């Protein structure tokens, strides 16, 4: 029986290597300039309150002629620069490279003056005016809508209530059925008195949402990740990539109180899409009114939005043109992994091209 791998000398050698890497890691960080995420040039074409609508410029400087615009609707709970993180990890850049004309709504950072914004304000006011702004620029009647995560839920609501303005709908890692057995967030929200929470806190702090997301996998996300960080800091590029991700993870805006109350009660607690009880601004949201073509992309190892939570869309929409695209990865890998850049944008472009 040999214990050579676990003898004091071998273990001390491992600790010395770890200490060296840690020291080298501190060097990498010391030399690293401030991070500025977002690599694709863009123009602000509309703004209102905290919101900005951006139009991305292609590398060639020429916008695709005749291409129906794609409007990306991101979640409120994180910042949208995840979709344009780095040169070789930018879903937006990849979409532009496939000839698509891309817009994105940046919701901004709500403050106390946004306390009483509701989902109706976000979806039927802000989002609708952004859609109108894009349509007006293109002289078009309809656009392509691409909703991400909670933004996908918003896009489903929008498409159900304003189907005349949406030509094609793409949802990415979008929760539809919030009560699947493996949806921990929804389970944890069931016994929370969200009225008390919002009435007490006003806007819901980004730190609270962060802590909740991290406690989905606390030992991995707050423990092992930082021990593995010494390996990531080994070279300047991987160190920068790590720190960009870190910046994004902890850059969580506060949530406008009433919109948070609406979303938790209608979806997390009420499972509104599935139960048919979702109402926004007094209007019923019936996914049977989603009659335009739908592409539903989900991540097979998504711990935030389990696959079954997304796949439930199939049985709820009214369209006869429904396509699912599984991505072998996680909730974040779907935007930033090298694998996703090679598979997801081409699939989106091809699917849209067939329905132009």
């Amino acid at each position, binding site marked *: 029986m040999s214990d050579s791998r676990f003898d004091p000398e071998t273990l001390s050698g*491992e600790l010395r290597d770890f200490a060296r890497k840690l020291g080298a890691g501190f060097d990498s*960080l010391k030399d690293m300039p401030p991070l500025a995420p977002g690599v694709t040039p863009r123009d602000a074409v509309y703004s209102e309150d905290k919101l900005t609508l951006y139009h991305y410029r292609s590398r060639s400087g020429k916008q695709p002629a005749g291409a129906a615009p794609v409007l990306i609707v991101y979640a409120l709970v994180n910042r949208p620069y995840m979709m344009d993180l780095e040169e070789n990890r930018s879903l937006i850049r990849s979409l532009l490279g496939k000839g698509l004309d891309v817009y994105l709504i940046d919701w901004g950072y709500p403050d106390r003056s946004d306390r009483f914004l509701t989902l109706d304000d976000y979806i039927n006011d802000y989002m609708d005016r952004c859609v109108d702004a894009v349509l007006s620029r293109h002289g078009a009647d309809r656009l392509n809508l691409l909703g991400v995560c909670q933004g996908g839920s918003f896009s489903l609501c929008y498409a159900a209530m304003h189907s005349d303005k949406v030509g094609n709908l793409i949802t990415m890692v979008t929760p539809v059925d919030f009560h699947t057995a493996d949806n921990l967030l929804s389970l944890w929200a069931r*016994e929370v008195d969200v009225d008390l929470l919002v009435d007490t806190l006003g806007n819901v702090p980004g730190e609270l949402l962060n802590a909740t997301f991290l406690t989905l996998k606390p*030992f991995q996300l707050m423990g092992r990740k930082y021990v593995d960080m010494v390996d990531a800091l080994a070279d300047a590029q991987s160190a920068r990539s790590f720190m960009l991700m870190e910046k994004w993870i902890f850059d969580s805006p506060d949530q406008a109180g009433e919109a948070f109350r609406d979303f938790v009660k209608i979806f997390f607690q009420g499972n509104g899409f599935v139960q048919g009880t979702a109402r926004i601004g007094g209007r019923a949201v019936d996914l049977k009114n989603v009659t335009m073509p739908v592409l539903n992309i989900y991540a097979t190892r998504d711990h935030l939005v389990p696959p079954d939570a997304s796949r439930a869309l199939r049985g709820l929409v009214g369209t006869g043109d429904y396509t699912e695209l599984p991505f072998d990865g996680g909730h974040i890998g779907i935007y930033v992994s090298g694998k996703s850049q090679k598979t997801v944008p081409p699939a989106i472009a091809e699917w849209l091209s067939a329905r132009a």
Partner: protein
Amino acid sequence: MTNSRWADEWMRAWRSLPDTAGANPWVAMLDHFTQSHPATYEQSFSAALDRLTEQSRAFLDLGHKLASSESGGWQASVFEYLDETADRLRDPSTAARAFGGLSPLDYWQQFAGRGEEPTSRQQTPVAQLEALLRMPGVGITREHQEMLQELSRLWLGYEQAYGEYAAFCIETARQSVDRLRERLKTEFGDGDGPSSIRALYNAWVACSEEVYAERVATADYMKLHGRLVNALMAYRRQVGKIMDEWANAANLPTREEVDALHHKLKDARQALQETRRELRALEARVGETPRRKPEKRSTGKNATKKKATKKKATKKKGAKKKGAKKASGKKTSSRRKSARKK
């Protein structure tokens, strides 16, 4: 000298230091380094650096204990460490820190702002707020007394919920230790054991995640989580009410007043948006109104007569109009009139 070489220099220096028995040179190195190299990094990196430092300290602590164990064989050293951890978890005074910052309890404490445990009655949250209300010019009233009593009750409720949550986290850690012990026995038996400290650490994280995932997906945890959040919010809401009382006495805006202002602002904004929508709809309708076709001009003998008749009629109309203008004092155009009719 780069930091990576600094580690080697440190170990050489460490060995020459007297009386370092039992101390962890790696943790000492890390602590010395972080204290002697403050603020040389981009400010936005500081939180990540803190987490890197904390988890590295925990890893180095684990590694040093295993490397300096005098027990024979990997099983002896590893299981000795696991036994010590299990003992720390059974002791209430050390349980919460048994995993060195690797516990959901830590994240909750960061959000909830638990702060230091009160060491005297004067330091309890209730006592501190009582002092605020006793300030000159504020003066404690019967209403304030009732609010403080309610606050005490809510604080006790939160303490109870927090205690239950802490017990849950500690039990999860204890079960993780047992799960790791079983896994190591199953996977390695009497063989060579884990390939490295990192392999052991990763196995421990995996076991912890497994046990945690099983325990937080239950109805019991759902209720425990709800009780914890709701108790903290109820307590905070009462604190907010007391702070509003104090602010009111100090002639400062209260939360209630500011919220009312924001509500009014939002209502006004909504009314403005509605008005804009109606205006756009009206503009669209006006744009749809067909133009009146110009009358055909006839040529020939009767044209002059018709023209004269028309002139008279126009003059009469003009006189009527003037009269109407004088009466109403308003200007109207024939186009607007016909649009209104439609």
